[in-house]
């Protein structure tokens, strides 16, 4: 499989502030790749360089075989962009908005097909000004999709959603996988990355703190946690060898003839991996 996106030693500063300090990663064609990190970690700067909105200071970037800094309008035929915040004409309906953007591309998807894909059938002829925040965000996704792009950039596609709206947006994004789209998605929601992404990179302070499959990241660190209560106090053990530790623990309490209250064994969630990776910056 060829790479849709290649980023190598990317750097960008705003005045004195180094927003991106040597970031490298690759995204394979057809892959859903997540850029994860707290606000200010450099996610949006990285994505906007890949979208051609910002100039890089150093490093090399290839997106669909071209350098975004010099790529022309033909290159834009193959990419779709959902920006972090951008409005749409409020007096156009959902279908009109999609038809307007469809007209910008040589090849586009049917408006009604996109309306179905983003689940806005009931709002098809409603003006944008009457849509809820979640519905507008799904229209954003539709506007990025209507040109039938090979590669989609989604910058925090569900920030500010209620849980139900997020689940619906996830369904829309998941359905893109079956269309064979390559997707670069930024988020600061762990469950979102875990649910949608084939691979994630955790950005911290403009650098990649970890990269891999969500499962691999949780497998790496921190260790498995064993919790129980003893004399009313909570005891937490962290271990690299959960089988041995648990065996020793249970053997001892059996021998002593007492119960391990509230015993719990837990592999770390991506959330904990993320927190342990991103909190170091504050120390």
């Amino acid at each position, binding site marked *: 499989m060829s790479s849709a996106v290649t980023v190598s030693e990317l750097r960008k500063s705003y005045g004195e502030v180094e927003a991106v300090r040597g970031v490298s990663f690759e995204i394979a064609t057809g892959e859903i790749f997540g850029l994860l990190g707290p606000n200010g970690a450099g996610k949006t700067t990285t994505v906007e360089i890949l*979208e051609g*909105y910002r100039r890089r200071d150093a490093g090399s970037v290839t997106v669909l075989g071209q350098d975004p800094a010099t790529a022309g*309008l*033909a290159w*834009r*035929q193959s*990419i*779709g*962009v959902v*920006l972090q*915040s*951008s*409005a*749409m*004409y409020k*007096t*156009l309906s959902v279908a*009109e908005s999609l038809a*307007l*953007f469809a*007209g*910008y*591309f*040589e090849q586009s998807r049917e408006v009604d097909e996109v309306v179905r894909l983003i689940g806005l059938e009931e709002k098809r002829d409603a003006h944008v000004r009457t849509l809820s925040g979640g519905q507008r965000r799904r229209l954003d996704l539709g*506007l*990025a999709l209507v*040109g039938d792009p090979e590669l989609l950039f989604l910058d925090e596609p569900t920030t500010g959603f209620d849980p139900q709206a997020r689940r619906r947006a996830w369904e829309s994004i998941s359905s893109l996988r079956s269309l064979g789209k390559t997707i670069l998605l930024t988020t600061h929601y762990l469950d979102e990355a875990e649910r949608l992404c084939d691979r994630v990179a955790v950005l911290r302070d403009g650098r990649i703190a970890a990269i891999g499959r969500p499962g691999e990241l949780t497998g790496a660190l921190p260790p498995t946690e064993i919790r129980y209560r003893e004399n009313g106090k909570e005891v937490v053990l962290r271990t690299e060898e959960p089988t041995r530790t648990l065996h020793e623990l249970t053997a001892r309490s059996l021998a002593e003839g007492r119960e391990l209250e509230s015993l719990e064994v837990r592999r770390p969630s991506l959330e904990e991996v993320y927190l342990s990776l991103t909190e170091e910056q504050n120390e």
Partner: protein
Amino acid sequence: MKLFRHELRFELALYQRSRELAFFTFLLPMILFLLLGFAYGDDELMGVKGSDYLLTGTLGYGVVATAFAGLTIVIVVRREEGILKRIRSTPLPAPTYLAAVLTTTLIAFLVQAVFIVALGMIAFGTSFPDNLFSLVIALVLGAVTFAALGIGLTGFIQRAEGASAVVNAIYFPMLFLSGAFFERDTFPEFLRAVAAFLPLTYFIDLVFSVMNEGAQLWDRPGDVLALLIWGGLGTVYALRRFRWTPHEG
């Protein structure tokens, strides 16, 4: 060309659906024309009937309201809401987009001018303009000049909320100083000196002369040149200061 027509169709729909634009830039000049016309349409101003004088002034009001104020506010709002940035992510060429926006403005103003002239004929018995060719070219020249100045101005406005304040602060004083509704000759010397700098002064003089003195465009090279200079200045700033992305922070 296909892309231009596609964009133009939607821009015209957007213009027609905008109630703010319809009222402040399209209807308000006509309402003021009626009010002032009933107040002193029968007096004599600048050697012509008051309503004839006001007709020229209303066309001046229309051109700054539609081509300058309306356009500037629309562009700043679209920019700050991120609509322009979103458009830049598509293959739509920037010149095509701007051409469609400008053409929409021009069409809106020409339709408005037809309404104003018709309103004058119906309400005050003003005559149908003689030198129609010169008049249309003068109106187009004015619209393009003020549109260029408006687009140039967008680069100096940082926020959507500030757009109408800045625009109004410029165009209302200009409207009065240029003599759209009052005889400039009655102004004190220093105000007339200020008026001599303003592009609207030259637009009003040109249109007044074409409509009331039988002049053709080529009889007024000074007015035409002044408008071209202002239009050129606006274009320079438009090219240097225009931004597609919202102001940050």
